[in-house]
């Protein structure tokens, strides 16, 4: 499909670096699936759906900066949803979100809680103000927080919270790859799902730019079971736009 026009209906400042853009079209999607957001004249970038009609964007470079310049009634192009999304299973699930990695996990927490599944979330960020969607996670179940600078919750990494948690049967993780790698090393791989970040070019499963160990993040992923990632490049290196290996 070609991009559809999404007109911004509301902009919410979530954190100093993160904004949610609500728009006038809804996408039926499985949390964890992503859309390609076309900032006309600039770039097209992958974004998780943080609501059925919104994306939550962290400002990091040219395209996200251009997004931040948009106002209500402005528009961008969207195509998707793409990819597989998180597979909901088990009675008691644990979410581990780092930074803007909370974006796909918040709607997932809500979906799970609607199905009467017990949800525990470990939410990490650099600092208190950067904690994303804490109310949503709290409303959906139990929330534990960690900040790098100790301004809220545990002082340290979100992975440090993980050690104390028992009693979950499936874990869902999204955040910086280094953090996800640490999580993978701490859990039973088959019981964990990770949403990966790779450079997405076509988004259609054709070009292969996003491949990790032969698997396409845009089509076979972005969510992969931990046991698949165990034997891969995961946490070791990524590929740059040219396809070169880059150490993480």
């Amino acid at each position, binding site marked *: *499909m*070609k*991009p559809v*026009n999404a007109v911004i209906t509301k902009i919410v400042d979530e954190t100093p670096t993160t904004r949610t853009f609500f728009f006038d079209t809804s996408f039926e999607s499985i949390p964890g699936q992503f859309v*390609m957001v*076309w900032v*006309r*004249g*600039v*770039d*097209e*970038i992958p974004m998780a759906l943080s609501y059925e009609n919104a994306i939550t964007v962290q400002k990091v470079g040219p395209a996200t900066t251009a997004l931040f310049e948009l106002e209500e009634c402005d*528009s961008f*192009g969207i*195509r998707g949803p793409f990819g597989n999304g998180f597979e909901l299973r088990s009675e008691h699930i644990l979410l581990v979100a780092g930074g803007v990695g909370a974006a796909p996990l918040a709607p997932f927490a809500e979906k799970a809680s609607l199905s009467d599944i017990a949800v525990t979330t470990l939410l990490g960020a650099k600092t208190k103000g950067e904690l994303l969607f804490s109310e949503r996670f709290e409303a959906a179940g139990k929330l534990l927080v960690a900040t790098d600078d100790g301004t809220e919750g545990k002082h340290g990494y979100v992975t440090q919270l993980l050690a104390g948690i028992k009693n979950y049967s499936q874990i869902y993780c999204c955040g910086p790859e280094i953090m996800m790698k640490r999580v993978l090393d701490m859990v039973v791989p088959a019981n964990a799902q990770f949403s990966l970040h790779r450079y*997405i*070019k*076509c*988004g*259609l*499963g*054709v*070009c*292969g*730019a996003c*491949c990790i*160990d*032969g*698997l*396409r993040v845009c*089509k076979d992923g972005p969510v992969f079971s931990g046991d698949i990632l165990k034997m891969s490049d995961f946490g070791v290196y990524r*590929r*740059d*736009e*040219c*396809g*070169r*290996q880059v150490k993480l």
Partner: protein
Amino acid sequence: MLSLTLAGLELRNPIMLAAGIMGTTGESLKRIAESGAGAVVTKSVGIEPKAGHSNPSMIEVDCGYLNAMGLPNPSYKNFQDEIDEAKKGGVPVIASIFGGCSLDFSEIAGALQADAFELNVSCPHAHGYGAEIGTDPDIVEDVTRAVKSSTKVPVWVKLTPNVTDIKSIGLAAQRGGADAVVAINTIRGMAIDIESGYPILGNKFGGLSGRAIKPVAIKCVYDLYDVLDIPVIGVGGISDWKDAIEFIMAGARAVEIGSAVGNNINIFSEISSCMEAFLEEKEWTLDEIYGMAHEV
């Protein structure tokens, strides 16, 4: 019963992966090999690392895709490891290469170890490369000859359909010593977002691939078969076994599949087995249907 010798390469079947499709990493090439392809062609690699055009770089249109990747590649200097990894898939690995002149091409072909080279003189949206070279018969002949003298493995030349007469380009490649030609690369095309007036692709225009272009590719293969002594490899819009048969009847010795891999990674084995079943039912061999459309 589908095995063949294609310009010196032994293939277990004539269904290959096209250039630019899951072809940047060794592991992805290996995955395709393991899924049943007769051979795999890598992403086109050049002299220097290239990031390619900005996104959107590929979109779906009616019955096909438009892409303007812009030849993103890690450069040949970072590519031998990928080829070596791909080789573990157990089928021939053909390195697709591009350059701005014959020196570029021979530098790359001289440095890489692959089972064959496919010269990309046909990408329609790379400035200074691809079709900007491949529309001129003299340059095509020159580039082909240069590569031939810098490698011992077979050299295929991939042709652009965006020319008045593809036969003259095919003949130029043959004169230059090509072992086969590959037809076709994508057709120049463009799409505009009517909500904004913006051309959708980051590069504004790109190349059309997928089912939309099959009739054009079939005609190119048919014409090339008529005039060339070297084999023609067909590519463009193949999405099922019937398409593959149609190409072979048009005169393709083997085929490559690009766009259709996106939605069906098992397409290689599916096509091979359906093709076998068809030939069996018809009591035909691969050789018998090869070029059949020219004989009826």
